[in-house]
């Protein structure tokens, strides 16, 4: 009886859900999607004019020592420790950059704005950021541009005219394809899965989820999305949310997508503690160190990511190139030290490269 009621409620929920939006999974955004081809052939990217902002009367910084502050979404988690390492590596290599990382201890947009505001007052030359909200952060970044500060984003974008360039760690459709393909390989073409994300409005996660929905509809149409749950970027909450999913859906649940570097290991831990290793697959974005125990035990088979050390490294090089005046609107590529030439896409974004899948065979080579 209980099951029937639950089934009825679920059915109703699904029906009303499908009435509202044809394809979108909860937690995705409303922007148009551009799923990659199922076999991975690259689509042609249309050239776009530069749509970033520009600082007002910046002083001549060419070759001069500059002070740069990096303000990620939050500090004290593995992922942003890794980007910080990349930024400091690049700064040391360049030799004429004084860089440091500071930011809120929670992924909170109010606090992040205050941090940026204070650093504008203290008079830095450059700001690197990863936005907690693309629109809410825009006024304070525009203020930085007005003060002649060079502004470059990485990891999570702001509205384009509020910053100069954005280092895109991987195109959303590329990540979405890697995530969905790996999940399909593990749970089969007809498996059901749920998603643990940070919040429904976090820009990256919302974009990925929208792209995953579009790609799955095109290339794995029989896979079944059950639910998306919010878990901030909180370890405990992520674990609880994943455990709730496991209990709620029972045998129906075949896989969990972890959308953040916190949600993925917490979901893997929840699956481990529920003794569901091998029956519930976890595919997600996470740093290798956090996932090593689960990957080495065989509980998790694929961890999708890019290299965040490279991401921070590239962002620092881009900021230096902007300050030096070597990267100007209209450029098609930019030199980023050991990474070589990076391609410029979507007008004012710099593409880091294709996503990387960590598996049992290669995860041991990474330490971040």
């Amino acid at each position, binding site marked *: 009886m209980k099951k029937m009621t639950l089934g009825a409620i679920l059915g109703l929920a699904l029906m009303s859900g499908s009435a509202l939006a044809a394809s979108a999974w909860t937690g995705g955004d409303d922007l148009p999607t551009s799923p990659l081809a199922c076999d991975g052939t690259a689509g042609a990217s249309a050239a776009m004019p530069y749509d970033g902002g520009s600082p007002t009367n910046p002083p001549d910084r060419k070759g001069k020592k500059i002070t740069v502050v990096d303000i990620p979404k939050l500090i004290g988690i593995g992922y942003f420790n890794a980007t910080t390492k990349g930024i400091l590596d690049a700064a040391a290599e360049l030799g004429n950059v004084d860089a440091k990382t500071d930011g809120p201890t929670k992924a909170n947009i109010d606090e992040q704005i205050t941090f940026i505001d204070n650093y504008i007052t*203290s008079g830095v030359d450059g700001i690197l950021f990863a936005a907690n909200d693309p629109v809410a952060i825009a006024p304070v970044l525009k203020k930085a541009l007005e003060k002649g500060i060079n502004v470059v984003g990485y990891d999570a974008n702001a509205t384009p005219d509020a910053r100069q360039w954005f280092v895109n760690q991987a195109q959303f459709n590329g990540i979405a394809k890697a995530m969905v393909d790996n999940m399909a390989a593990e749970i089969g073409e007809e498996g059901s899965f749920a998603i643990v994300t940070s919040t429904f409005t976090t820009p990256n996660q919302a974009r990925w989820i929208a792209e995953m929905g579009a790609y799955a509809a095109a290339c794995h149409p029989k896979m079944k999305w059950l639910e998306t749950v919010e878990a901030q970027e909180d370890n405990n909450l992520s674990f609880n949310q994943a455990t709730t999913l496991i209990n709620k859906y029972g045998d129906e649940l075949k896989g969990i997508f972890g959308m953040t570097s916190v949600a993925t290991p917490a979901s893997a831990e929840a699956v481990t503690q529920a003794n569901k290793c091998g029956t519930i697959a976890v595919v997600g974005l996470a740093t290798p160190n956090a996932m090593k125990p689960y990957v080495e035990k065989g509980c998790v088979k694929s961890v999708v990511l890019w290299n965040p050390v490279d991401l921070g490294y590239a962002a620092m090089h881009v900021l230096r190139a902007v300050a030096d005046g070597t990267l100007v609107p209209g450029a098609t590529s930019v030199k980023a030290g050991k990474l070589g030439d990076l391609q410029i896409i979507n007008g004012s974004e710099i593409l880091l490269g294709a996503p990387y899948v960590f598996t049992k065979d290669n995860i041991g080579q990474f330490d971040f």
Partner: protein
Amino acid sequence: MTASKLLRHETILAVLTIIALAVLASLSDKFFTAENLLNQGRLMSEVGLVALAMTFVIVTGGIDLSVGSILGLTAILLGVFWKNLGLPLPLAIAGALACGTFAGWVNGFIITRFSVPPLIATLATLALYRGLAEGISEARSVRGYPEWFYVFGQGEILGVPFQLWILGIATVVSAVILGLTPFGRATYAIGANETAARFSGIRVHATKLWIYTAAGFVSALAAVIFVSRVTTTRSDMGTGLELDVITGVVLGGTSIFGGRGTIIGTVLGLILIQALKNGLALSGVKGDGTIVVIGLVLIGAILIGAMFDKNRGG
């Protein structure tokens, strides 16, 4: 309770604040500039507004943990009224303010009508209002407000941020109400001894209901300013606001047991915290270090306050 005793904590705090300002100014030449101070005023306006009402709440011996959630709910409703229901923006603002005020009234109603301890009642509505905000918004942000709306959060009048004027007016009004009116004396009487206040003919329930409703109203007002400042609504806005507010009020010398506290103290507490956050950041202390210093200052101020209490012989 003579005026000199009442002012004692505030005097210490004022001295402490002046010392802190002087030290911070010497640490960074960017700190004591008109531009930076006005900008800090802009950043503390939302917390400041709510703290004024919170002073009344705590003076009655109560607490309101739901203010951050009311802020989030009001912000979302503002967006929903305007975008989804298609109301003109001024009407949407008025509607959102009314709903926030109503949310505060509900707090007061639960507390007075059913004699639920304020801590429990507002802990429940903290979850309730935040849940409503997330449910109503369906996790979508509302953006793209017309340019004139940004005046509240980003505009200036005579070179002073718009919201600082509002905070200034609200501060004077609440200081007068708490310090000079029968309503203010009733507030102190309730906090000092609720039973005695009732037998003295003070309308305890009505007074409390007004105070919690006012807390809802200022939280809603803070929400409008906040949305205007950051140009978007999110359902997680104002998360943790209650803690910043209570920290400011308690640092300002308001007794958490009720019966004691002033608006001046609250304002000084807020200024001290904001100055420390900003000044330490400007002099190169990282965010985590700043939190530690604020914690130490709070403990220090409370210890000094307790010492004076002892000297007074209880």
